[in-house]
């Protein structure tokens, strides 16, 4: 049931244990135990909520930053990645194959803050060779979900 359970809550982490148990035809206690095991094993890493901030009054600017770095002896990219991801304003860090090494996703309230992060914090990390910053203009789909699309049942009655 492990993978099936994961697929279910990946789409909707709010489904109650009682319903999960019924959908998987197992006991509630088994679902509780499995969820606990998945958390312990670090397979479930969190239960965040997908928010379309554009519809709120809060200003949020998201930047994708391509970072080229010199890998360090013994630690490869891990140590540099750590130095970057420890900043709370950094939302995601990925090691990427191709033209650059790290993809950093940064969320800030203004352009100024983003530029200050890039010039003062990111570029000054010694192994960082170069950065290229892209701003997100509009989010169409995030984490498998089309933003702002509401399901509507348009099926008509037919015999």
């Amino acid at each position, binding site marked *: 049931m492990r993978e099936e359970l994961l697929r279910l809550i990946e789409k909707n982490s709010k489904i109650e244990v009682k*319903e999960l148990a*019924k*959908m998987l*035809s197992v006991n509630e206690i088994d679902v509780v135990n499995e969820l606990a095991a998945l958390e312990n094993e670090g397979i479930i890493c969190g239960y965040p909520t997908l928010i379309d901030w554009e519809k709120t009054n809060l200003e949020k600017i998201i930047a994708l930053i391509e970072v080229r770095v010199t890998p360090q002896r013994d630690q490869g990219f891990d140590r540099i990645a750590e130095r970057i991801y420890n900043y709370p304003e950094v939302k995601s860090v990925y090691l990427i194959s191709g033209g650059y090494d790290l993809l950093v996703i940064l969320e800030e309230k203004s352009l100024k803050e983003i530029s200050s992060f890039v010039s003062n914090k990111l570029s000054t990390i010694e192994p960082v060779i170069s950065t290229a910053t892209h701003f997100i203009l509009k989010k169409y789909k995030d984490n498998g979900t089309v933003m702002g699309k509401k*399901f509507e049942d348009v099926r008509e*009655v037919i015999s």
Partner: protein
Amino acid sequence: MKHRLSEKTLSIKPSGIRKFFDLVAEKKDVISLGVGEPDFDTPWHVREEGIYSLEKGKTFYTSNSGLKDLRIEICNYLDRRYNLHYDPLSEVLVTVGGSEAIDLALRALINEGDEVIIPEPCYVSYKPCAILADAKPVTIDLKAENDFRLTAKELIDAITDKTKVLILAFPNNPTGAIMEMKDLEEIAKVVKEKDIYVISDEIYAELTYDGKHHSIAEIDGMKERTILINGFSKAYAMTGWRLGYACGVNEIIKQMTKIHQFAIMCAPTTSQYAAVEALKNGDEDIEMMKESYNQRRRFLLNSFKEMGIPCFEPFGAFYVFPCIKKFNMTSEDFAMKFLEKENVAVVPGTAFGDSGEGFLRISYAYSIEKLEIAMEKLAMFIKTL
């Protein structure tokens, strides 16, 4: 003016589902668990292929039998999934949904007065199609204690020297029942001995939740007397594309193609191009949808268990068929009162034949959120009975 209409057509009763849903349509904010079609959109890569064919100007008729590429893919699919072997050039006909194929099959086989055996409860179109083909429909009342499977004994009892065809529809709408290989073998024995045909409507074949679907055509000596009907509506969530097919020996398919050619010409071209893509690259989509249906199926069965409503475990299609006899009401009464009180629509079992009395058809082609609300309402409703 006084219209002088066909007596035969006039004699046909409108579908029982229709009647019920005309009532539903008058009410507001009804949670309906009545629809018999997938709630998924057609997978995007399949839609994209349909769009591409339009962009390329593929807007002409196809051959009467359907696109050759599609017929080849259908044969590959049947071979891959069920080890069935058909010749794409002479043993396949692409139709406007499985429904057209049912009509054609009956019209190609029936002479006036031939009897067609229809196990009930079943999909609403078999009986009217049989009547329109001048056959005499003979129904078998399938039993809940047999999990709504057809038994050899029931079949033998229904056969007369006029019997021409058995319509076999598993996985079944409305019960969700399936026939396993051992059940099919028993039926095949009788069919061969009594020398009759089978029209096997396997439109829900891919929606089988325990083990694998089997076709009666797989059994030795059955291919020549079986018309296998399948389509894209349920497996690939393509109901609106109106595309199905029939497979059988050339002697039969040839006659069906003749009727199809004069009545329909050919199935929609755009749909045929999309269907090629579905068959080539759609296996994963089926798995994804099947997993989701299965979760809802288990959810409903466990909910009934909790409420103490008996329901045999259906292993196919996307329907459950709970028994409401213990509430001492007819199916229609139950469905009407449930609609009035809780605004939830379910279909009375009697819409699918008299043997559906005492049962309800509940479709789980709905989001789990909707099913949850409906089950809460059902629990409240039965407390008042």
